[in-house]
């Protein structure tokens, strides 16, 4: 993302809203629907005033029927529209998995290329709000395993806007996993409708001792940890894949080759999480020969997200955990 003259500080939620607004302005086929996206402005306030700008037709409240909503998006996309669906919490994609996975993801291939399903599914994931196990999951690994889906996890304000715009442009179904804790975070983003290309990782910081690969809210925690590590004389490269599918393997391989150590940080439970894929990819890549240490994952515990704040914090990596793990990795290997 190159800085442009019209860059200003806005929140992540505002960035998403701005992208939605710009996409709807420039393309009649784009519309938005989901539970409480209209007058309410979205469960997390993301859609805000869009209904007043674009009307109830294009910013459409739905009943509570995630499967039906996503299915309707598939149908609208097949019939030439560019629907954007909001699912209030990414946990409720469980309700809609058939339409996401068995329909949206497969139709283009299954029909021999005769049709495409240009739709976007936006949903916030992650813990940290005390919403407990059914409202706090990080399910990106599910989607990243499904051929036919593209998956992005914007970690910055600029990417919240840029990746969403690119997702809306894409002729394939794209799952955009936002993060609840990021919505209120501020950061720079261009006013104009600049795309963040899908499939390109961002190197957020460069160091020599290890490479930290992190997704979602873990990107800012990794950067904070990298600050602290620097004070102790350990410098880290921090890579934010941004797009999980298709994954920019090259950037990860190159940075890990350069540092010889990899710490992979995700919020989701360790077992079978997305970082397992990154690790496996690294261990069968040219980087393997350059590894000075085992590829380490720092992940959420293999537990449902608990309600109590102290338990919830303990369940997912925090900045000190990243610092500790990185230090260990560098000092011991």
């Amino acid at each position, binding site marked *: 993302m190159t800085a442009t003259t019209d860059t200003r500080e806005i929140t992540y939620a505002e960035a998403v809203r701005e992208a939605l607004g710009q996409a709807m302005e420039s393309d009649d086929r784009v519309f938005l629907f989901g539970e409480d996206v209209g007058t309410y402005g979205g469960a997390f306030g993301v859609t805000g005033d869009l209904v007043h700008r674009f009307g109830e037709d294009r910013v459409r409240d739905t009943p509570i029927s995630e499967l*039906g909503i996503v*299915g309707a998006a598939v149908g609208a*996309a097949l019939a030439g529209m560019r629907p954007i669906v909001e699912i209030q919490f990414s946990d409720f994609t469980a309700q809609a998995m058939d339409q996401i996975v068995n329909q949206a993801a497969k139709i283009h291939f299954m*029909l*021999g290329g005769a049709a495409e399903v240009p739709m976007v599914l936006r949903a916030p994931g992650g813990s940290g709000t005390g919403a407990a196990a059914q409202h706090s999951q990080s399910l990106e690994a599910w989607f990243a395993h499904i051929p*036919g889906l593209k998956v992005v996890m914007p970690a910055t304000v600029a990417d919240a806007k840029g990746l969403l715009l690119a997702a809306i442009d894409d002729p394939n179904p794209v799952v955009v996993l936002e993060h609840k804790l990021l919505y209120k975070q501020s950061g720079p983003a261009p006013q104009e409708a600049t795309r963040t290309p899908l499939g390109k990782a961002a190197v957020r910081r460069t160091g020599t001792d290890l490479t930290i690969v992190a997704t979602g809210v873990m990107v800012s925690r990794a950067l904070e940890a990298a600050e602290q590590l620097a004070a102790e004389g350990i410098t880290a490269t921090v890579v934010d894949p941004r797009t999980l599918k298709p994954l920019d393997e090259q950037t990860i391989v190159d940075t890990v080759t350069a540092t010889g150590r990899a710490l992979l940080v995700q919020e989701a439970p360790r077992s079978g999480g997305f970082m397992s894929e990154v690790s496996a990819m690294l261990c069968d890549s040219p980087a393997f020969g350059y590894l000075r240490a085992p590829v380490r994952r720092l992940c959420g515990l293999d537990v449902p997200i608990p309600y109590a704040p102290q338990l919830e914090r303990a369940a997912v990596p925090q900045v000190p955990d990243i610092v500790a793990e990185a230090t260990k990795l560098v000092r011991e290997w």
Partner: protein
Amino acid sequence: MDLVKDAETATSALTTMWTIRRFEEAVDDLFARGLMHGTMHLSIGQEAVPTGACLALREGDYITSTHRGHGHCIAKGAQLDRMMAELLAKETGYCRGRGGSMHIADVATGNLGANGIVAGGVPIAAGAGLAVKMRGQSHAVLSFFGDGAVNEGAWHEGVNLAAIWDLPVVFVCENNKYGMSMSVNRASKVDNLADRAAAYGIPGVTVDGNDPQEVHDAVDEAVERARAGNGPSLIEAVTYRWKGHSKSDKNLYRSREEIDSWREQDPITRFETAVLHQQTLTESELAACRDAARDAVRAAIRTANAAPDASADELLSAVYSGGKQ
């Protein structure tokens, strides 16, 4: 539209029904002889439903179909040779051999696709209806599904969305009495599945699904309603599948007598009798329809057989669309 009294329409309807019948008999035979792969779901005995229903449609209208979708596809105007090529796993098939029977679509004629997922097409139909409505068009979307589909959550959610937004969708339930082995009477407690329409505040009607005219009239009225912006309808067409659910079916859940009694209600024979009775067509004109269907299916098999096998070369690059040009 009078299917029975108008010669041209009668010819068209009869030819469509015979084409479906002959096509599926051919498929049955190819399977039995080990020349066809995968699985298949035949709609023999149910030909009146897609035939009567699709006669109410015009260019620009959409359909969504099911695992038992050959009839819908043919009635909506698909090319037999490309259908057959798909089933025979040829590169020239509708899906280039990647979809098979359960995924044949013909987007050009508005057929958004068969679906291997029971009720999977129902919310998709609602979405297509939403697209039509948002564009201010007057097209209709016709969604076919079976009696088994009405107990899926997807069906409930899709119908409700269409209802609240007055979408131009016609939901056509092909009640062939069983969802696989589950009798419709065991799967729900309502007398007629059309009664479920009331739960969505939309009209519901039950018709004789072995009479293409009855089907047509109900669908036609619903399509007009849809085009006029008055929202969706539910039509239950009662019919019967003669063959097993799929090739693994041993028919343990229904009796020989039941099957025979429905065979006596053959929609094609009934229609031919009616047409003859009304003197709309002569015996030899009927025979001509039959021959046309047979010849078309034979030609389709020949063309399909001559086509190259589907190629595995481009699998990986076929997953994502690069965008329409």
